[in-house]
């Protein structure tokens, strides 16, 4: 792309990035508060992460290392396209390794590998307003946030228990931030809610279509709402990951054939691949079921397909840091 006009660094023009950074700073100053911003058209459809991409574009620098995940996976369409996008418009290094990334843009998962101070997690948010489906009026929901009228949020949880006998909300599970704002943690599974609590990493949320940015500064209290007699619980899985044997991680169901064959594997592909590459690593001790390595032998009855069938795409080798 030498002859054609080049994009500004990270696609957005400097004034736009400045505007988004101001929104981000305001969001960090008021944890959990939804800051309106002038969301731009991006070269991708709404719903594909235009909010997250704008946030990433505004904070990324030439020295950053970017990781993009989609439902925990590094190799799905959304993740691959956004990664390619930033390699093209910002010429930054990209990686699939959680630990070595400085910015992780994510759609609906928080990596299993614990995040460290200095890392930034950017969420793509479809509907930032946790009260939306209970109260359709934006003027009213804003007033409710301003006056801290959150009784309605519990009405939703009440309905869950009345209908299902337990809180059946499994994703976009509402949280209270620093004892003040009720926030939608984006459609992450509630499994990841506890990871947001007092995380050393900065967490930014961008909603492109809804034109809202909000943030959780490092070490912010994030408490999932619940009832005294129906406390918050995360999902549990009966079996460990069928590929790496990890326990206490979030699993995806993979359909294997047309005859009902299926298996549960790690949703976080990076975590799963690393565990399989080095099952003996002390890194797995004490988390994600340290015993997982020993369970390797317990292969499921159904044959395990290669995790990915497509050949490595162009330039993928260069991703290694």
């Amino acid at each position, binding site marked *: 792309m030498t002859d054609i006009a080049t994009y500004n660094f990270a696609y957005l023009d400097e004034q736009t990035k400045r505007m988004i950074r101001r929104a981000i700073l305001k969001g960090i100053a008021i944890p959990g508060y939804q800051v309106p911003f002038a969301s731009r058209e991006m070269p991708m459809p709404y719903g594909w992460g235009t909010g997250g991409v704008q946030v990433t574009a505004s904070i990324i620098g030439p020295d950053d290392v970017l990781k993009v995940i989609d439902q925990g996976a590094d190799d799905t369409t959304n993740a691959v396209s956004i990664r390619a996008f930033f390699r093209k418009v910002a010429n930054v290094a990209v990686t699939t390794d959680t630990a070595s990334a400085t910015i992780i843009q994510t759609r609906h998962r928080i990596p299993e590998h614990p995040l460290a101070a200095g890392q930034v997690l950017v969420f793509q948010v479809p509907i930032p307003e946790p009260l939306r489906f*209970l109260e359709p009026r934006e003027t009213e929901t804003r*007033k409710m946030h301003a*006056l801290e*009228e959150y*009784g*309605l949020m*519990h*009405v*939703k949880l*009440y*309905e869950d*228990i*009345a*209908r299902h006998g337990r809180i059946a909300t499994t994703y976009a599970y509402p949280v209270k931030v620093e004892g003040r704002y009720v926030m939608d943690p984006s459609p992450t599974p509630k499994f990841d809610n506890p990871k947001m609590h007092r995380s050393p990493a900065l967490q930014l949320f961008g909603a492109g279509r809804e034109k809202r940015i909000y943030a959780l500064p490092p070490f912010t209290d994030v408490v999932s709402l*619940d*009832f*005294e*007699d*129906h406390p918050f619980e995360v999902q549990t899985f009966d079996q460990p990951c069928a590929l790496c044997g990890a326990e206490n991680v979030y699993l995806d169901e993979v359909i294997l054939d047309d005859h009902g064959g299926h298996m549960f594997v790690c949703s976080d592909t990076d975590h799963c691949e690393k565990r399989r590459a080095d099952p003996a690593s002390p890194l797995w001790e004490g988390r994600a079921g340290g015993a997982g390595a020993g369970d390797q032998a317990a292969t499921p009855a159904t044959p395990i397909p290669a995790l990915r069938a497509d050949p490595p795409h162009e330039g993928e080798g260069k991703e290694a840091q």
Partner: protein
Amino acid sequence: MTDEPLLRVSALSKFYGSRVGCENITFDLWPGEVLAIVGESGSGKTTLLNCLSTRLLPSSGTASYRMRDGQWRELYRMSEAERRFLMRTDWGFVHQNPADGLRMTVSAGANVGERLMAVGDRHYGNIRATAVDWLSRVEIDEDRIDDEPRSFSGGMRQRLQIARNLVTGPRLVFMDEPTGGLDVSVQARLLDLLRGLVTDLGLAAIVVTHDLAVARLLSQRMMVMKDGHVVESGLTDRVLDDPRAPYTQLLVSSILQV
């Protein structure tokens, strides 16, 4: 009853541009008293009710409310947060159309429990038990607790709306045509229920109605409005049996006799 009123309204007026909504309304409301505001359509009853319940800000005049701690507060000087808190704890508002006052897409139990959760109740079992109790008090079967009000009849919806408002034990309830749109037998049951609840709980209520029978049954005192002004006020029985203002005489003589 105490010596002090619950609500003091003084020279309250509301203008819509140059048109009069209601003008120069002054009255006191005592605890446990039911006041009916009657008059024809467009006489300013609902404007007055909306002003009193702070859903609408008046053009001039004051209204003071005696809080639970005995302090007098001027309603239109309170912050919005305080007014909304008052609205969902110490007050109730029963709409003519139950759909305006209910959340039609959540269950009856959640409708009743919402106010409890709004004031910080976080125990599912207790909330549900209170909801069951209140549904039985308004004669709704316990097994309808998980049904949405959409599946309820008009009379049931109205009773549910009343339960939803009374669950926090308010001291003052505003009612806008609570029996409007219901057939007469359902009206009779609802009135009977309301009368019982108001007496049992010692509620003060301001009931807006165009139906003089509702005023007769529920209220101790009434105000007759016409064109935004109070033309006559006094004890309900006195006003209905011995109307003095020509308009009240017309109103009373307009009642159909069966």
